[in-house]
């Protein structure tokens, strides 16, 4: 099971360590530093490393490495999932998962880690349960605590710990009872030079924010559940009912949670909202190149495309870009060689265009690779798969809750090859 955890910042300093069994010297991380050195980019460090006596399993989140040391055969996915859960918990408690906040809350972090794992076995990882045992920091509480001498640590057994519904605590009370659901879809796509779709799929997620008194039992149903053939659920969802009736029936956790994720991959169902006309070319001689990009609407279902951006990783030899944009601004970062064109809203009447010349390092050979374009976009009030929630019913409680569903479509890993 998980033996130790080291938190390492992106420059390679270990700033926190926690051991659940015997203490393992931090020199074990040297193997990781070696691999990190070799990989160059922090994203490229292999997640599972073998050392003579241990295994190091690492995740990279928010410029931090969470490195766990294990000694026996443990499912690596279990470790990785757990590490992400740790990062999520920090985010949940402190608003972000960064070196700064962890150092600012080091004792709470330590208490949390102790509560999340016992002898390497996960103990309490549900945010609801943890929050009952270790109160998240806030200014008001720390003032109150200093005045009254009370503590951040709950002294009763968390109610969720042992019930059949560990994700929900008992005795929840709200004056305003509300349940909101966000259907968020991301389009992952690869388009080739000519604009043909090589690959496209939709990653969907339903995020929920439920603040309801007592023990509500909710049923969420869809107009077109047939769309969903590949789903994964929060543990609260009753799988049998989904199998039989294609409805989501569940007793929700209190607060924010991810109700389900799904993915739609049949090609014909994935609409591509924009098209891109591009040409990027470098000349054999003269150390320069040309760039010309135009974007236009394709299948937008009559909605406005917003937050449009184009990001290009230029070849290393490109020194600068001299371009004109008919809409929005562009920046070219010399150090990272990344060109970002921030367009904003897409106006179908006047298509945005970016055009101009690129200057290449003198004497360098013509770049071999073709830079890919990464597109960012957002469409409000639309789930591009066509998924629609038809109704939400509540059983088990008497009050009338306020309900809301919001849809949004974004570009995920949306790339255009040149």
């Amino acid at each position, binding site marked *: 099971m998980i033996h130790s955890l080291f938190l390492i910042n992106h420059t390679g300093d270990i700033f926190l360590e926690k*051991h659940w069994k015997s203490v393992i010297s931090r020199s074990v991380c040297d193997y990781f530093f070696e691999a990190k050195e070799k990989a160059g980019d922090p994203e490229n460090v292999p997640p599972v490393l073998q050392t003579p006596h241990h295994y190091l399993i690492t995740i990279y989140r928010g410029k931090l490495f969470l490195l766990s040391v294990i000694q026996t055969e443990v499912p690596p*996915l279990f470790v*990785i*999932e757990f590490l992400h859960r740790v990062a999520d918990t920090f985010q949940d408690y402190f608003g972000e998962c960064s070196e700064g906040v962890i150092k600012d809350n*080091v*004792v709470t972090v330590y208490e949390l880690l102790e509560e999340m794992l016992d*002898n390497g076995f996960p103990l309490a990882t549900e945010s609801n349960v943890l929050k009952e045992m270790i109160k998240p920091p806030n200014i008001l509480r720390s003032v109150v605590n200093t005045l009254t001498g009370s*503590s951040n640590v*709950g002294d009763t057994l968390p109610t969720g710990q042992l019930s059949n519904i560990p994700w929900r605590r008992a005795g929840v009370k709200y004056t305003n009872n509300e349940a909101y659901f966000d259907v968020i879809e991301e389009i992952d796509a690869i388009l080739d030079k000519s604009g043909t779709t090589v690959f496209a799929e939709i990653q969907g997620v339903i995020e929920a924010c439920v603040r309801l008194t007592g023990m509500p039992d909710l049923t969420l149903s869809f107009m077109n559940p047939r769309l969903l053939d590949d789903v994964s659920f929060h543990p609260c969802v009753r799988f049998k009912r989904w199998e039989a009736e294609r409805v989501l029936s569940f007793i929700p956790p209190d607060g924010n949670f991810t109700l389900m994720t799904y993915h739609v991959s049949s090609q014909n169902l994935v609409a591509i909202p924009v098209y891109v006309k591009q040409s990027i070319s470098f000349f054999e001689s003269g150390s320069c190149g040309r760039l010309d990009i135009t974007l236009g609407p394709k299948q937008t279902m009559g909605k406005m495309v917003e937050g449009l951006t184009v990001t290009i990783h230029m070849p290393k030899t490109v020194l600068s870009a001299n371009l004109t944009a008919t809409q929005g601004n562009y920046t070219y970062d010399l150090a990272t060689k990344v060109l970002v064109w921030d367009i904003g809203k897409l106006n179908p009447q006047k298509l945005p265009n970016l055009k101009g010349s690129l200057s290449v390092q003198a004497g360098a050979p013509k770049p071999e690779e073709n830079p890919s374009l990464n597109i960012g976009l957002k469409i409000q009030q639309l789930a591009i798969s066509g998924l629609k929630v038809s109704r939400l019913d509540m059983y088990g409680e008497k009050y009338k809750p306020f309900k809301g569903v919001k849809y949004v479509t974004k570009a995920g890993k949306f790339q255009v090859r040149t």
Partner: protein
Amino acid sequence: MTDSKYFTTTKKGEIFELKAELNSDKKEKKKEAVKKVIASMTVGKDVSALFPDVVNCMQTDNLELKKLVYLYLMNYAKSQPDMAIMAVNTFVKDCEDPNPLIRALAVRTMGCIRVDKITEYLCEPLRKCLKDEDPYVRKTAAVCVAKLHDINAQLVEDQGFLDTLKDLISDSNPMVVANAVAALSEIAESHPNSNLLDLNPQTINKLLTALNECTEWGQIFILDCLANYTPRDDRESQSICERVTPRLSHANSAVVLSAVKVLMKFMEMLPKDLDYYGTLLKKLAPPLVTLLSAEPELQYVALRNINLIVQRRPEILKHEMKVFFVKYNDPIYVKLEKLDIMIRLASQANIAQVLAELKEYATEVDVDFVRKAVRAIGRCAIKVEQSAERCVSTLLDLIQTKVNYVVQEAIVVIKDIFRKYPNKYESVIATLCENLDSLDEPEARAAMIWIVGEYAERIDNADELLESFLEGFHDESTQVQLQLLTGIVKLFLKKPTETQELVQQVLSLATQDSDNPDLRDRGYIYWRLLSTDPVAAKEVVLAEKPLISEETDLIEPTLLEELICHIGTLASVYHKPPSAFVEGSRGVQHKRLPGSAGSGESVDSPDTGSAAGVSEAPPAVIPSQGDLLGDLLNLDLTPPTTTGPPPPTSGMQMGAMDLLGGGLDSLMGDESEPPPIPLRTDTPQSPQLSHQSPSPPDYSPTELGGDLGGNPAMAAGFGAPPAVMPTSFNAPVSGGLDDLFDLGGGVGMPMGSYSPPKTVWLPAMKAKGLEISGTFARRSGVIQMEMTLTNKAMSVMTDFAIQFNRNSFGLAPAGPLQVLTPLSPNQSIEVSLPLNTVGPVMKMEPLNNLQVAVKNNIDVFYFSCQYPISMLFVEDGKMERQVFLATWKDIPNDNESQFQIKDCHLSSDAASNKLQGSNIFTIAKRTVEGQDMLYQSIKLTNGIWVLAELRVQAGNPNYTVSLKCRAPEVSQSVFQSYEAVLKN
């Protein structure tokens, strides 16, 4: 207010100030002080000096303070065991607390304090907590048993905690069940043969019920445990599958993968024509695809596992090719894995798409990725015949880019394409030759040379091309040198008239100026072949080569089966059986897939390992560069032999060896009139060769040319031997083998049993000034105990005598200790004591422990030392091949244990030689996929036989040793000897 304030230091000395604050009367100040201490601890500062002060804060009703003190205790108790005992009372009291949270916390913390004295006090509270009315306490206590087991396994067994833990599997609370399973699984890992998790239909039912109700982590433990169960029949298998399937929709990817493991395993038992079987197959695809949309780290592990699943059941993901398309911003480790799976899934139906993608990847930035993409194009050509033409033209396009590493990679794969489709694409050779000068990597150079040699008759200037390589012969890597040698010999056989000088040059370079035994031997063999019978040489060297088959780097079927049972574990990430690398799990049981319902193959057949490997005719594979033997004759593989019972050594390599031993001898012997062999004085005489045949004859090119040109009688006379060789390999095998090993042995290795360096057994301060250091050695069949006695006292020592306690192998002094002269102060003496093995026997722990008493005029001193078990390996330990085979099969698989030897850089032959020096005898050798397997036997003085399989992968410094013995307890020590011998 943030915790960073705890890091501010003052001038006066942090520790001093903290001490004062910890002893403050104010509760709040105390708590703040403890927090500061913890904060320092988390960043690795040593605050152990504050131990007593922190422990004083423990008795409090403030839970946060208590938890903080516990945190501190867990970290430092080990370094301050005497102080830690002060905390025991509070723990014991807390275990009786009415608040279950406090009871659980106390028992949990106590288990984390790894101090023996504390664990003694832990037993009683733990026993109570295991039966606590509150499930929260019970589930915490279950984990505590695992902790205690880690500290003191014997104590846990003596106290009967294991039984209590087993009872908890039937607990009413699913969380308790899950934790009990987790704890038992962890304990079982260090006790591979204990039947801790006794799975029967009743417990399985309980686990399945708990599965639905426990947390996600608990589900992982339960699923992993279920995967170890073997259902009685297909109906039980199906019902378990049905109850596990819902887990595939879990948000936690580890749960999903563990469920996939259970399903993949139990599916084996379902009849294929069952409707449910098809349904299940369909259900497996979506969750696997979903795993690929998770974080990159999760994707990586998922991809490694999908790689296995695709090999076992390609039908599951055959329509999902597109999800494996590489995205621009995938991390490199994900990209490489995706590429692998794309090739595995490539088929006629999707090849166009795949090729278009691969071509796209070949222009990316990352060099490793581009190389792999180019190689993948070649693999597609070999796998999908219809696409070969398109692949070749794609490769040619890529060669035109002139990007150096792309060109080199392309040439390597084109060589393979030639071997799959001979006489089809040779028209591209001209284009390849244009790029000759830009090749700087050994593999590409070797490939190019192979192409030139193989198609010498179609390349007008083949001799010039090869000659250009010859100039820098000594600077080339072995791989290139070997290829060059073979290439030029081929050229010579094809165009004998113009190339005599060239071939002479290369043969002398290889045989006289090279230190590399492989190169030298290959040179000699060619030389002899050419000089004795060029026609036979032609038949051998230019023999038609079998086609290489489609799939490369497939995992061996038995290994794959085992890995499928380990889906989701580290083994599945490394694609190695867990026994090969998991530390501390000695003799892990090999898991096997259950047999399918219809098939007659029983699961418990002990030899499925080697049997399946050979009789199913493993796919022929492009040999790696290490596969020299096969390469030597350009017979990269012989057709799979199906004759007779599958021996542990495959027929393939034996054929090749026989050719060398028997075949060559007959070549020589059949000469009606021995050819006049003028001994060249300047030819280095290699003693290791001389027993086999006369030294290399001085050969004259003109004679050779004439022979080749027209001596039909010779040709007829020598046509036979090579034709016979692949079939008859049984009789002369051992001869051929011996020869070969002797060949390798001439490298100049000192022979003789390995003896470790002397270590101090008895330090002077423990023995009133007498220091004894020593070691053991086996010299011409006699075990010697070699000691250096040093007098470090002020007075003279006399009257030495020695005695052994009873020991595992009955070692006893064969004579008295010969120290004749008195030992004066500061004097040392070397003594050698011969030992026999007829003394009284008692099993020791460890097995090779020897307790010795030494007496002198001052006192009697006792010490114990460990002898390398290799001292006990006797000289007549070479088993007959047939006996070996039968014995290997006869010894149950449970007795097999596997070990890994790291960082050993010997070739298999050198290793075999070294081992032979210590009476570890190699009986047979075979090579599979670039991996050499040596089969070895050892006999101990007490008649115990140990059989071993040593696996050596070219280029991988890690060897794997599998040992089989009727007395498995010796395996560990035998392995240690292996390691010691090989590393010295």
